[in-house]
């Protein structure tokens, strides 16, 4: 009886629907508005629907690892290579990049505004014991942040001025704004949200990506179709089509154009043509 009722209620939702591609991706691609801008073209071309599950890179890969997504678009090279090594994907393709920047309170108590290298800035923040908020959610941004701390030879975990939030990029920026704290952010999310963050300034990374003098702040995005040998349930054909579409010249151009009018600069720079290094 209970099962029948459940079945009937649920069956009401399962009507004839177009094929669905499940894309697990990071909050930055969704929150910046990039996916909303480019995905309709793909949905039209393939007569399908793309369901976007926007979480941190760590969670996105975990969802795919269980076979619950068909394709992943994330930004943590080490974790992506691991994913391919475990045969959850056959290959990984470069899609686009932007960069990370350090933002902090306008009065800059740790005096990092003139610093070129992120690791020097982090060392200054640690010296001044100025409040720093970290994503703390195993996202691509957090792994980039960890690499910078390692380069600065500092382990901030446990320090009173270091706060690990376990939140997405937007929430972390909002928290930094409220607590007048420093944080590492991807430029795309920063640009799309800066209007609502009056207490914060971009301190390290330069006004545009071209001005960023620290190569370790490079933020590369990669796409991987989930391997059907490991996860027979995935829609590999559609995922493959999505990957091809994402790295195609037309889509790459659209990615580069996105945000230029609104922000005066691109939020993401396409680089799919470049072969694997």
């Amino acid at each position, binding site marked *: 009886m209970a099962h029948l009722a459940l079945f009937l209620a649920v069956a009401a939702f399962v009507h004839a629907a177009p094929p669905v591609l499940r894309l697990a991706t990071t909050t930055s691609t969704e929150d910046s508005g990039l996916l909303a801008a480019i995905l309709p073209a793909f949905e039209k071309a393939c007569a399908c629907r793309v369901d976007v599950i926007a979480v941190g890179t760590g969670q996105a890969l975990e969802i795919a690892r*269980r076979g619950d997504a068909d394709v992943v678009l994330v930004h943590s090279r080490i974790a992506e290579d691991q994913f391919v090594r475990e045969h959850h994907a056959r290959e990984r393709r470069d899609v686009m990049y932007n960069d990370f920047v350090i933002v902090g309170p306008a009065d800059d108590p740790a005096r990092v505004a003139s610093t070129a290298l992120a690791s020097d800035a982090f060392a200054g923040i640690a010296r001044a014991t100025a409040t720093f908020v970290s994503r703390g959610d195993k996202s691509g941004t957090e792994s980039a942040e960890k690499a910078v701390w390692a380069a600065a030879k500092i382990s901030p975990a446990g320090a009173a001025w270091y706060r690990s939030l376990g939140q997405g990029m937007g929430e972390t920026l909002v928290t930094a704004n409220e607590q007048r704290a420093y944080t590492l952010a991807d430029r795309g999310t920063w640009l799309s949200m800066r209007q609502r963050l009056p207490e914060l300034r971009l301190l390290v990374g330069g006004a545009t990506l071209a001005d960023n003098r620290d190569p370790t702040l490079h933020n590369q995005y990669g796409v991987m179709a989930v391997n059907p040998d490991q996860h027979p349930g995935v829609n590999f054909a559609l995922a493959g089509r999505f990957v091809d579409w994402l790295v195609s010249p037309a889509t790459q151009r659209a990615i580069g154009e996105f945000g230029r009018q609104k922000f005066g600069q691109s939020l993401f720079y396409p680089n799919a043509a470049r072969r694997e290094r």
Partner: protein
Amino acid sequence: MSADLLTEFARPELVAIVGLTLRVTGTALFIACLVGVPLGAMLGLVRFRGQRLVTLTLYTGMGLPPVVVGLFVYMLLSRSGPFGALQWLFTPAGMIVAQTIIAFPLVAALTMSAVAGVDRAVHAQVFALGASRVQNAWTVVREARVGVTAAIVAAFGAAISEVGAVMLVGGNVQGQTRVLTTAIVLFTRQGDFAMAMALGIVLIVIAFAANLLLLRLQGRLGER
């Protein structure tokens, strides 16, 4: 700010979000009541071995954190889980399963209390009139209907306001599984407080309307 807020209500996305919220919670509540009210009534009427254990389980279920229910349902519905073949993860169907599990113990336990609270004299009276067992049960449940209605509204409130389970199981997919609570989380994350507030107000209005409906029902039923 108030003008800002007004324009938020005009967004077409909001209508879709409210519609899905009512659809998911409404369906979950319907299933929870279909099973929970008869079970609760039975538990309130009959004495049997192991009843304390069942009661204890229901009371524990009332306090289950939604996020734990979400994690549990996620594992079951994942393609690597036992019910992966259904492909219900990140769909409204999966969200309905999660909210049903959240609403069910509330419906059953509160119905049980209401029915058990009905004066035993009514019981005896009905039996004296020569009613059958089923007729007897029905009469007692009717007597407890104010409490049963309260159980249903409490379950509705718990289901529509929870965020942990629907976020995990639904994935907050735009136009597909985005409900009021997960949308509030998203817009807050993006710093879009005006939209988040607008959705919060809608949620409160829905809760208010549900309670108003309950009060009216109780008033009407109580007068008879």
